[in-house]
Every structure is written in structure tokens, then in C-alpha cells.
């Protein structure tokens, strides 16, 4: 049923329909509305016998789920940013143990300086932890990906992060087609673990592996992810068949056929990118875009197929590998290494900086005409940066950068669509 609903509440509603058995949650903005809604639903008896644990940290939250999942329970939590990094050791552990936990990431920047607004630094920091990472463009997709995530996780015995942009999606009220409990039950079979802690059949889980076998164990984890590419497509197709709409999959192309320039991005900015493409195509530019839905595993082959005839790729990414540049663009470059095309990196939207359509239109035109420096920082305030360079040259104790820059640019306000 279509409903005007907040992203977090929509996600919480479908997570409850997925019949989780254990949830352990620690509050962090902008994830809070999801866990608040789930707590309410569990207390109201809407989630069967599900146990909702208020834990003392994100590290504990995921650790609780590791125990619950090993005991054969369907397990869920949500976090973001500092919370995801605080649980980092457990993230790798759940990945290594192949426990099919589903976790929502309400994507947010990582400090310092502390910043509660959206970018993808948090998920990117955990991209190699052995979790599948699915990125949602809008709240409909966020809802749909959660249902797919449980099915995928449990089929493969591999944890899944569903990444949705903090505030931009979590706090946005949109029209969302929410499934019914029966529809979700039809799509999502009961959890049948591949290994379980059972007194009648005792096994040791998580024991030590030495140099003689560790490589093989890691190879098999890699192989599982490569095989997951097919499973992700199949799971999305099965979803389409049952629910009548496409959501997720490996990637989604927009006007890429014959396009000279292809923009690549993850998450909600794809909506703005599509609008920018419509404008650019009206002006006669041959532009398309690819939304990467499955960032881990990275759909190298599928991506290659879409871009093989393009001239240039612009990766617009909400993250930064300090000292290097783009993170997603590295994956993209690997996928196109044998193709005669240029890949340019546009770092954009860090810490919630708005990415207006006008900026995308401008940067695509620039890229087509002259190319871009590598990496390009979209809408960077060079005056503020240069002022800081001058200050630092003048005086060793030139003050705190996070204090100086806002001093230069004036009082804080969220500027959208400037």
C-alpha cells in the first residue's frame, strides 16, 4: 500500500515484516528513528517473540547479533558513522564467520571534525570487511533492499549492509509502496543457518586458523562474494517478479546507450544526476549514468559491459581516500582498465554539502570540454582554503582548521540548491 512515510519508519516497518528474532541497538544520529520505531513495534508485540536489546555500544550491538546469528536467529541492527567504525572489529568478525546479519547504515560522515550529515565515508571504511553492501537511491528502494537483504544474506550465509543516505533518505517523507506481511512472507523463506550452536551436535565456531589454511579460507570468502553477484541479480529479479517493480540488482543504467559521457554514483544523489542528465541531453550532450546498487561485491563485468563504448566516466563520490582521491573511482578504473576511456573523480557532498543539479550540469560540461584535475572537489570554497594556507604560512600556531574555516565562510547554515 502506498503511503506518505518517513524513510526510517518505512524501513523499520519492513524490517519488522522480515520477522527478525534478535535486534540489538545503540542510538546514533541519523539512525535513531529506525531503532525507535522497531523498539515500539517489538514492545507492541508486532514482531513475534523478537528480542530487542538496548546495548551499551555499537561494538556490543553487533557482538550480540554475532551470538544470536550463530544460535540460528535472524538478526538485525542499524548504525552509522562513528558507530560503524566503533564496531569495526565485529564487522570483520561477522564477515569472516559468514553470519547472515542485516544492518542498515544511515550513511554519515566520519569525524574529526564531528559531523552528523551525510556522506559515504562510513560504509567505505568497511568495504573490505566481507559484507555485501547495497546502496539505496530512494526510500522505496531502501524498503525493497531490506527485504532482499535478508533473503540474500541467508541464502549465501554472508552479512549484508543496506546503505541509505543519512537525513536525505532516513528523514525524508516520501510516497513509499509498503508491502504487506503476507507479501514479505511469500518472498522471504524462514532462516535456515548453515551452522548453529546446538548442544545435541556440538561444534566449535571461530577457532584459530594458521598460515597453512588462512589463505584458502580468505579465498573462499572472496569466491563467495564473486558468486554473490549472480545471487544479487537473481534476488532482485525474483523481487521484480513478485512485487512488480525493479529494486536493487547490481547496477542501474540511465540513458547509457550510445552515451559518450557516463556519470557513476552511489545512493540518493542518483536522483539529482538523472535530472541533470535530462537537462544536459536537452542541450544536446550525450550523457548517461550508472547507479551502482551493489558496491560490494563490485559488479566489474556488468559495469564494463555498460561503459565499453563511452569516452569518459565521471565518478561522483561522497567519500575521500585522503592522500589519494576517489575510492569508487579505483573500482571503476579496474573495471575499465582495457578500455580507451578517461575516468575522472569528483569528490562531492562530503559532510552533507549539498550537490545541486546546477553543479552537476556545470562539472559535466567542464569535464567534456577540458577535463578535470584529479581528483576534483565539487563546489570547494577555494577562498576559504587559500586563506587557511596563508594563515599556516604566517604562523605555526595558526589555530584550529575546523574553527578557522567556518570563521571564513560565515555562520553555519544549510544551503541547498545554491
Amino acid at each position, binding site marked *: 500500500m502506498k503511503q506518505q512515510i518517513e524513510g526510517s519508519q518505512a524501513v523499520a516497518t519492513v524490517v519488522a515484516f522480515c520477522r527478525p*528474532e534478535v535486534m540489538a541497538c545503540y542510538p546514533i544520529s541519523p539512525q535513531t528513528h529506525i531503532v525507535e520505531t522497531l523498539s515500539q513495534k517489538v514492545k507492541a508485540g508486532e514482531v513475534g517473540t523478537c528480542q530487542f536489546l538496548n546495548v551499551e555500544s555499537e561494538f556490543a550491538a553487533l557482538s*550480540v547479533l554475532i551470538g544470536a546469528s550463530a*544460535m540460528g536467529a535472524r538478526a538485525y541492527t542499524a548504525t552509522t558513522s562513528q558507530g560503524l567504525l566503533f564496531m569495526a572489529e565485529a564487522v570483520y568478525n561477522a564477515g569472516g564467520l559468514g553470519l547472515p546479519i542485516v544492518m542498515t547504515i544511515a550513511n554519515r560522515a566520519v569525524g574529526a571534525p564531528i559531523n552528523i550529515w551525510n556522506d559515504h565515508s562510513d560504509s567505505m571504511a568497511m568495504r573490505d570487511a566481507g559484507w555485501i553492501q547495497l546502496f539505496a537511491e530512494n526510500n522505496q528502494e531502501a524498503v525493497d533492499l531490506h527485504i532482499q537483504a535478508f533473503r540474500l544474506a541467508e541464502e549465501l550465509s554472508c552479512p549484508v549492509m543496506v546503505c541509505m543516505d543519512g537525513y536525505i533518505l532516513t528523514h525524508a517523507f516520501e510516497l513509499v509502496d509498503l508491502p504487506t506481511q503476507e507479501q514479505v512472507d511469500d518472498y522471504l523463506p524462514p532462516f535456515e543457518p548453515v551452522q548453529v550452536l546446538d*548442544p545435541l551436535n556440538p561444534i566449535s565456531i571461530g*577457532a584459530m586458523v594458521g598460515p597453512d589454511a588462512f589463505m584458502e579460507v580468505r579465498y573462499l570468502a572472496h569466491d563467495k562474494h564473486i558468486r554473490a553477484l549472480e545471487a544479487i541479480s537473481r534476488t532482485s529479479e525474483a523481487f521484480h517478479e513478485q512485487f512488480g517493480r525493479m529494486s536493487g540488482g547490481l547496477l542501474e543504467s540511465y540513458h547509457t546507450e550510445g552515451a559518450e559521457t557516463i556519470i557513476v554514483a552511489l545512493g540518493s544523489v542518483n536522483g539529482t544526476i538523472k535530472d541533470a542528465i535530462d537537462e544536459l541531453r536537452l542541450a544536446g550532450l550525450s550523457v548517461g549514468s550508472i547507479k551502482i546498487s551493489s558496491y560490494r561485491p563490485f559488479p566489474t563485468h556488468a559495469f564494463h559491459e555498460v561503459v565499453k563504448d563511452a569516452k569518459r566516466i565521471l565518478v561522483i563520490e561522497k567519500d575521500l581516500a585522503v592522500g589519494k582521491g576517489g575510492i569508487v573511482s579505483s573500482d571503476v578504473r579496474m573495471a575499465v582498465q582495457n578500455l580507451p576511456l578517461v575516468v575522472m573523480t569528483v569528490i562531492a557532498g562530503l559532510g552533507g554539502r549539498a550537490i545541486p543539479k546546477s553543479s552537476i550540469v556545470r562539472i559535466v560540461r567542464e569535464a567534456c570540454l577540458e577535463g578535470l584535475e584529479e581528483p576534483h572537489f565539487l563546489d570547494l570554497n577555494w577562498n576559504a582554503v587559500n586563506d587557511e594556507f596563508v594563515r599556516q604560512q604566517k604562523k605555526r600556531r595558526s589555530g584550529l582548521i575546523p574553527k578557522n574555516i567556518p570563521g571564513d565562510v560565515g555562520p553555519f547554515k544549510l544551503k541547498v540548491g545554491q
Partner: protein
Amino acid sequence: MAHQPIKFYQTGTFTIGNRLLDKSEQTLQSQVERTNSLNSGHRACQGCGEALGARYAIDAAMRASNNQLVAVNATGCLEVFSSPYPESAWQIPWMHSLFGNAPAVASGVAAALRAKGEKGVKVIAQGGDGATVDIGFGCLSGMFERNDDVLYICYDNEAYMNTGVQRSGATPPKAWTNTTQAVGTHPGNPVGIGKNVPRIAMAHGIPYVATASVADLHDLEAKVAKAMGLHGARYIHIHVPCPLGWKSDPALTLKVARLAVESGLFPLFEAEYGEVTDCTPIRRQVPVERYLELQGRFKHVFADPLAREAIAEIQAIADTNIKRYGLVRKGVTNGT
């Protein structure tokens, strides 16, 4: 499991040999019904107090739970020596996740059992003192305050032994470790720091807290059995000498453990809902020197010209325990 003979060498102790007791009073470990949950063949050092403590504790927990037990293990000696793949000494469902999260993983196992309506299966979490009082302390406190249905057992050998003997929050004053070397004007671990987790556990108001020692295995088994009969968060802190880290004779593990108890340095007590309910009186009080002199980690205390002062500081700790728990009762002989 076929009967395996087990040998007891308890000469020079107050313990009555098992064979002289009525079968109902014998330790479970001396009976064929024992489950060998931590089976033979593991890689613990000679004279390992932790292996001994774990063997008694987990078998006692198995009996108390009708063999319906799941154990979660923190990283550490116990985990490493018992479970190098493809071998495992564990005859029970056992899981190791990380160093600092065993209490939370156990909370998750307990939550899963609750969600599934499985009331028969009991959950134990276990780790060394590093996993318990230091790196896993946040998760431990969280498990306590939520009163999750988990028995947590800490095997306290008073330092990070698995990594090669470094100081933990449970390392005693003056003790040498590889990060509290016996050099400088105040050698060894500084006096007046560290934490007493049994008392911190009590402050959470949980149903049961106890200390135990491998010096008194009857008592250890009884406390585990008692804890297993209760619901909610429970904590047992077991003193387990480490010949490697304490630089003590592997043959003297039980003697060293016993002297810790008899000197008052390791008081044996039980507490329920934050109140001490019982303690084991010292049968023959000994000065702390008798305990310290068997351990190379305290050697500098005796070599130091200020030895008397250092020993007096340690004796003062024992005296405080004796007073706090009423450990010395009338008629106790002085063993000096």
C-alpha cells in the same frame, strides 16, 4: 565418554581425598559422569591453572544444565590452547568471536534462545582477566546491567599471558610483568591501581557473584552449580595461577593458589544482589611472604633493600580483605 582415570596429588593440603568421601560429595571431576567438556589433548602449559579451572567449571555447568550448554569464549590462552583448527578440545557447542565481546556474544545467544522459546539451554561466557577486567569490561557491564541470562566466568591469572605476560587491570601490586618490569625505584606493578571486578559486579546488583580458586575445587564446582541454578547475570571470578607468567613451579600451581587464599590476598566469597552472603574462612592464615616467595614475579620484592616496606604494603592488602570479609575466625591457627 569412556571412563578415564584421573590422578589426584593433594598431599600437604587440608583437602580430604575424594576417595574417602561419600560419592555424593565427591567432585564431579572424579566421577565417570563427567563430560570432559574441555577434553584432553589441548595445548595448555604444564601446571596451567586456567585449564584446570575451566575443566572443573564447565563440566560442573554441564551437569547443572543437563548437558544443555553453550559456551562463548573470549580471545586468550583458553581459546588458543583449546582450539587450533582443525582440532578442538571442546565437546560442547563453543564459540569464539573477539577479545572484547564475549559477554555481548553470550547475551546474543541468550536472546536467540529466548526468541526461540528454548528454556532448557544455558549460556556461559568465559575469558581471562584481560578480556574481563580490561578490553571486554564495557560489554561485561552491559550484560550485567541488562541482567541477561548468562553466567560469566573470569579465569584470573593476573596478566596478559597469551601475549607474553603484560600487565592487566588485574595484575597485583609489585608484580613483575613485561610491561611492569622490576626496574626503577618502585619496581613492578604500582601499588594502589587496578580494579576489583567481583566488587564491581556486585555493584550492578546482579543475582550472583562469587570468587573461587583452583585451590578449592569442591568449592569451585559448588559455586558453578549454584550459579547455574539461578537466572539473570551471574559472575564467578576464579583465581588461576600461571606458572609461565608468575615464574612459579608448574608442580606448585595448587599450592600457590592455596597460599593466595590462606594469606587473604584472594578472598573466597559469595554475594547475591550486591550483598556478601558467605565467605570461606581462612583455615590457617599465612603471611603474604609465603605466597610471594614461590613466584619469580615477586623476586625483586625480596631483593630490594626496601623489601620489608613492599611486603608490608602487600600484607596490608591481605589484612584489608581479611577484615572486610571476616576471613579469620576464632580458633584459626597461625601458620607462620
